[in-house]
């Protein structure tokens, strides 16, 4: 695909990714967030963080299955949007739920497993977001950068666990998120196992 087409498509995807945030802001200013608007903002930004995290993880499998190589060009964009919604989500918690009461926040992270999991998910995303530039890849070196960015798996697991633990009773949504995550991680494991069975380079036989 031509470079300028990819750029144009990137702009479209970028605008689409911003839509949930714009819609939320519009609803907030038009009194459309229901009886408990602050809770609605927290839930909505949380859901979108998860959706974007899973979308990011879906890029590689989809690319390999469909043989569309240029899909990889959208992975960073989606990952950064996951971080963006994660930051909004964290901010709503720190602000509207805790009103920046540091003592309460620390106590919460320590005492409540679902907060610990959520905080872990965000903290694991943070180094990935700041090393997402081409310059960082160069500085760290390709393989080290890649190893660091495997943290995204841990972040996604922590995010799903966070969602699972906070739900009161109806687990339908966290279950479906966990199912998708299992598929996405499972794909990678199977891919690895297959790669080990059929080595690309013939083994070097040492002769004594």
């Amino acid at each position, binding site marked *: 695909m031509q470079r300028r087409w990819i750029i144009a498509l990137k702009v479209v995807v970028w605008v689409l990714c911003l839509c949930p945030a714009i819609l939320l802001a519009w609803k907030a200013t038009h009194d459309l967030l229901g009886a408990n608007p602050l809770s609605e903002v927290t839930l909505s930004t949380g859901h979108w963080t998860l959706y974007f995290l899973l979308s990011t993880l879906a890029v590689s499998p989809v690319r390999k299955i469909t043989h569309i190589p240029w899909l990889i060009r959208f992975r960073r964009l989606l990952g950064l949007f996951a971080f963006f919604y994660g930051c909004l989500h964290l901010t709503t918690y720190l602000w509207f739920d805790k009103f920046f009461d540091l003592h309460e926040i620390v106590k*919460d992270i320590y005492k409540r497993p679902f907060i610990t999991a959520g905080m872990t998910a965000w903290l694991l995303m943070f180094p990935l977001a700041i090393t997402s530039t081409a310059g960082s890849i160069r500085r760290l070196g390709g393989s080290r950068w890649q190893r660091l960015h495997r943290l995204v798996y841990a972040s996604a697991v922590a995010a799903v666990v966070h969602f699972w633990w906070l739900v009161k*009773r109806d687990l339908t949504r966290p279950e479906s998120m966990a199912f998708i995550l299992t598929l996405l991680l499972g794909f990678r494991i199977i891919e690895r196992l297959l790669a080990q069975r059929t080595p690309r380079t013939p083994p070097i036989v040492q002769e004594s």
Partner: protein
Amino acid sequence: MLIKKQPDIPSSEITSKSVYMNRRQFMTRATLLGAALAAGSELADPEPAQANTKLTMVKSQFSTTETPTPFKDITNYNNFYEFSTDKYGPAELSRNFKTHPWKVKIGGAVAEKKTYDLDDLMKLATLEDRIYRHRCVEGWSMVIPWVGYSLSNLINQVQPTSKAKYVKFTTLMDMGQFPGQRSQVLDWPYTEGLRMDEAMNPLTLLTFGLYGETLPNQDGAPVRIVVPWKYGFKSIKSIVSIEFVGSEPPTAWNTATPREYGFYSNVNPEVDHPRWSQATERRIGEFFKRKTLMFNGYGDQVASMYSGMDLKKYF
């Protein structure tokens, strides 16, 4: 003797009316009426609406002076899992819920087992306009002007025997009307229970109305219990059976997750839910969070029932 006095301004007149609930129907009728008038013909009899009817009631000494939460929020932000686990679901899904005819069976350890017709049950005692604080276990709260009478009126009427130690309440079981009952999210039908002294406490309200009118379906129509010093889920909705029993009855949320929801479930800022804090709450309509009060602020009337009890153990 209770001196009955008509309220200066019934809460139904201060705030939003049930017209809001039936706004679509209202608009349709208005349109039909307009069309009929234009055509110079008579308007055909409209289908009997399930509009909420006004209730005659007196002011209550147990009311809080806090500002009631708007009708719109009380009737759109509901936890009523029989309809949906989504808070905004019950308002829509309960639209055609049938509340007439409705019978409430009184059973168990009572002198006289009896089944009440809703209309008779409603006439058993003087209805009161009672404005209560409502605290949900999830950490939000409202101020709700309920209409009903103390459950003790009914209990005195049916005369439980000495074997009655607890009261068990049961919600209607009807998968056709309650789509949520087709899922396994709770053990249906919903059941709740109170200790005899809790049931006899004057604050425990057998509730028929909200904002001066019969209960909207999504708020537990046609008859529910309101226990204002306990978390909201103890206040069971759409009751069909009240049974007097000798031992602690199983209750829906306690059966589902015993570690998280105790039989007592008294509002207590010092005993956290295993997964979240109960120290603060968000009053619907407010930006800042409030400190949650012990027994939801009803300590003066109820604390003595639990003296000597370890409330961390009996949460």
